[in-house]
Structure formats: C-alpha cells, structure tokens
C-alpha cells in the first residue's frame, strides 16, 4: 500500500515536471525558446521539445501562410487616371527569431507589410497606363511587386509568397464617365446595325426592282420578236398568194375597203363619168 502511494506520487511529480519542461510544436506552428526573455533557439520542425523549467519559456509563431488584406487604396496611373486598387498578399514567417526581434508580432508585421507592399505597388502601378494595368501587364506587375516586396520583407524574417491585385476599380465619378461612354458606344453599334439592315434592305429592294424590270424587258423582247415573226409570216403568206394576180387583189381588196370605209352618212360625190353611173348619162 505504501508502495502504491509512492508510485502515484512519483507519477504525478514526473507529469508535473514533464508539463513544465516538455512542449509540443504543432505542424502549424514554429517556436522560439526564450531564456529570461532572450532568444536561445528557434524550432521550425514539429514534434516534442524540451526546455528548462522556470528559466526558459516558449513563444509560438504561425507556420502556415498568413493573410495580408489591405484596405483599397487610390493609385494614380502613368496616364494620370485614378484607380482604386484592392490587393492582398500571402506571407509566411520564415525566420521566427528575426521576426521576433524586428516586428515582434503579427500586428507589427501587418504594419510593416503595409509600408512595403503599398509603396511598392504605388511605384509599380505608376509606371503603366490604366489599360496596361487592367489587362496585359497585371500578371507582370504582381510578379515584380511580389519579388521586390519579398526582398525587403526578408529582413524581417518574412517571406512574401504572393502579392495579388484583387480588384482594380475606378472611383465612382469615373465610373459614371465610363458608363456614359459605354452607352454612347452601344448607341453607335445599335445605329450601325439598323443602318446596315436598312442598307441591306435597300439593296435587296433595288436588286428586286432591277430583276423585275429585266424580266419584263426580256418578256417584251420575246413578245415583240414573236409578234414580228407572226407579221412576217403573215406578210409572206399574203404576198405569195396575192402575187398570183396583183390586179385582182387590188380590185378585190379595194371593194372590201369601200365596204368598211363608207359607212352611214358619208357624203359621196359621184361623177357621171364613173363606172357605176356611166349608164346614167348615156343610156
């Protein structure tokens, strides 16, 4: 019974000492052991570690990627346009010792990152026109800003993995100008479409009119040709027949013409010399 009691006391004491001297560094953390506030060593690998109880203590630092999200700021581009740039950065504590000595903690780091990234971004964005920043230069600018900021941040035990422009927007008053321009542009396009439609329509109508005229002209041509052929044929037929006795034809046809021309109330002057009346004067 005495033995048991001793064992328990021993276990408790061991656990108590272990609790004071052993500490776990998690996969997500890194640590610095301080002796009376003076850094002794940095622990970057996760696992079980020890310290001297009472005279040493441990501070932990985040070992994961950290977020730096700045408030949107106004930046003047090379072509003197104002842009509101909202950027963020992903960063990491790579040297906890340096980090502790220079910026001390996350709040200090945040302030330092503000200085570094903001000024670098301002300088770099000022080198380019707005359109370049929005489109083709964006990636390059971000790379450059990341590189240079990273170099500067290294002295604080910080590595900047990525500086990224999240949003590039125009100030509200410029937005209005853009909207007006977009409207004007759309109006122009709409006008163009309608005009094109009218043009196309006019073309089709003109072409249709032309085709109609051509069709009718062709028809006229064919018709006239046919009529001419008919006339010619008729003339030929008449001529062939009447040529058998032109005198008789003339006589016969004249009589026919008389019948048609001398109709009612025509006054005719008849000479007693005429064939018809010659028997009237000399019986």
């Amino acid at each position, binding site marked *: 019974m005495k033995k*048991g009691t001793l064992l328990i006391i021993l276990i408790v004491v061991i656990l108590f000492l272990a609790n004071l001297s052993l500490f776990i560094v998690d*996969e997500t953390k890194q640590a610095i052991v301080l002796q009376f506030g003076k850094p002794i060593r940095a622990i970057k690998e996760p*696992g079980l570690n020890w310290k001297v109880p009472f005279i040493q203590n441990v501070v932990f630092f985040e*070992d994961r*990627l950290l977020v730096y999200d700045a408030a949107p700021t106004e930046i003047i581009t090379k072509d003197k346009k104002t842009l509101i740039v909202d950027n*963020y950065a992903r960063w990491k504590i790579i040297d906890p010792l340096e980090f502790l000595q220079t910026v001390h903690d996350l709040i200090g780091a945040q302030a330092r990152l503000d200085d570094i990234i903001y000024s670098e971004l301002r300088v770099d964005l000022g080198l380019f026109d707005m*359109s370049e920043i*929005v489109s083709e230069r964006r990636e390059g600018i971000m790379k450059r800003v990341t590189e240079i900021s990273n170099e500067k941040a290294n002295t604080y035990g910080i590595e900047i*993995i990525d500086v*990224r*422009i*999240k*949003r*590039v927007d*125009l100030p509200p008053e410029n*937005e209005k100008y*853009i*909207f007006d321009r*977009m*409207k004007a542009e*759309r*109006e122009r396009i*709409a006008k163009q*479409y*309608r005009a094109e*439609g009218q043009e196309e*329509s006019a073309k089709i*109508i003109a072409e*249709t009119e032309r*085709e109609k005229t051509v*069709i*009718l002209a062709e028809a006229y041509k064919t*018709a*006239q040709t046919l*009529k001419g052929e*008919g006339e010619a*044929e008729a003339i030929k*037929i*008449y001529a062939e*027949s*009447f040529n*058998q*006795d032109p005198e*008789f034809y003339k006589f*016969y046809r004249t*009589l026919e013409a*008389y019948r048609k021309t*001398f*109709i*009612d*109330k025509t*006054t*005719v*002057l*008849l*000479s*007693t*010399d005429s064939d*018809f*009346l010659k028997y009237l004067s000399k019986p």
Partner: protein
Amino acid sequence: MPDYYDEEKEKIINLAEKIPKLIFSKKIFGIILVLVIALYLASGIFIVAPDEQGVVRRFGKFVRIESPGLNYHLPYPIETVVTPAVTRVKRVEIGFRTISPGPPVRYQKLPAEALMLTGDENIVSAEAIVQYKIKDPVGYLFNIILPEETVKNAAEAALRQVIGERKIDEALTVGKYEIQEGTKKLLQDLLDSYKSGIFVVAVQLQDVNPPNEVQEAFKDVASAKEDKSKYINQAQGYENDLIPKARGEAVQITKEAEGYKIERIKKAEGDVAKFNSILTEYKKGEYITQARLYLETMEEILPNMNKVIVDLKENQSLINLLPLGDTSILTAPSKEVAK
C-alpha cells in the same frame, strides 16, 4: 446547536475513516487503475466517416493518414487526429450571395464585387460560383489559414484578371467558356503556389452582364440586331412577292405574243385561202366577175350614204357645183336618218 455540530463532525470523521479503506483496498485500487488505463487507451479509438480522411499527428508532427472506418491513435497528448471531409465539395460565390437556398432560391447581388473592368476599359458585371474540395488534407490543414477566404480572394483576383484580359464583347458573349476555364486554371495555379491542398472542381460563370446603368443601351443593341434582320426579312419578303409576280407577268406577255403570232398567221392563211378560192373562180370569167363584184359592193354601200351626183361634162369646174351652205343637199334624207 452544539449537538448538531458534534453530530456533523462525527459523521465526517466516520466518512474519513471509510475513504482510505475504499481507496487503498488493493483489489479496488487495481480495478480502478486498470479501468482508468483502459479508458485512457480507448480514448484513441476514432471513426473516420466515408467522406473524410483521418490526419494523425504525433506530438504535433504529421505521421499518417487513416482511411474511412474504425481507427486507432495513441491517446492524447501523444497523438491527435483531425478528420477533414475531403470528398465534400464546398463553394464560394462571387458577385452575389444566396440568401436562402429555397425553393424559391433568393439571391442578393453585390455590385461592388461583381463589377469589373474589361481590357478595353469597359465595365461588366460578372457572377461566378467556385466549387472546390480538398485534394491534399496535409497541405489544407498545415499550410494555410482561412481556406474559404483564401479561395475567395484568389478566385476574385483570378476572375478579374481573366476578364481584364478580354474585351467587353468577348466577355459578354463568346468568351464565357474561355473565362471559366482561364479562371479555373489561374485559380488552381494560385492555390497550388500556396501549397493549399485545394482542388478547384469548377468555376461556373453564372452571368456576365453589362452593368445596370447601361443595361438599356445593351438591350437596344440586341433589338437593333433584331431590327436589322427584320429589315432584311421584309426586303426579302418584298423580293419573294415581286419576282414571281413579274415572272408571271412575263409569261403572260410572251404567251399573248405567241397567241398574236399564231393569230396573225392563221388569219393570213384564212384570208389567203379565201382569196385563193375567189381567184380560182374569178379566173374562169374575169370580166364578168369583176363587174359583178363591183356592182354588188356599190349596191351594198351606197344606200346608206348621202350622194351628190355631178355631171362633169356640163359643169367642168367641180368647185362651182359644191352645195356650200346648202344643207338640204348635204342632209338629204336617207332611210336611216329618217328613222
């Protein structure tokens, strides 16, 4: 009061006497010890659900991944486990938020997040959903903080960058698929560069619209397009109406002419046939027939006419004999007039 006090005191003393007996009774002590140790060891049993993976750390250091099912880790504080849901697809929304998943689904638009600049300095409103899941639980747990915010930030940056590379018309129409794929790739690259262990399942572009302020103008362009084809259709309608009519008219004209031609020929043939017959008979008695024809004609035409008969032998000048002013002669009554 004192009595009461003593009684209480006595009870406590009695109890105190009993306690050591209980604890230090060897048998009970043994049982309790075994029980405690057993419970302690059993605390390492854990279940990994089918959509999870168990990530085990020993003294904070990653050691292994356990598959779904019943598993065991050494008890705390030696080993600890977390079980992130790796097959579950999570989503973040850009440009809008789902207020209630419905039905009916209700959304809230976030113009500040949705409006973005295009490469040609126009503004579009784009809304997208990003779906992601964990592909590497180790990276996901140990390399990044705030995974959802990380995905959202990176997705916004990627979408804006991709839209910024395009012109507005492209972004609004044909470029949709490209924007989706481009954003997905860029986002994945970013998340990989953070060693986040996140896999982008899909970037779905919900809507790319012109901003509200210019919506009308864009709609008008659409209706202008409609107008254009309307004008063309109308013209084609006119064409379709007119040309067949003209063709019909043309056929009519030519047919008429054909008819005329045949008519002329047939008439000629008929006239000639008549003349030929007459001529044949005429040849048989030329003088007689001529006279007969002449007289018959005269007989036929003269009765209806006003006649003035002049004897040229006595009045050589015709003019003198004209009955100028004397209407009685001109209107000499004929049978027809009298009627």
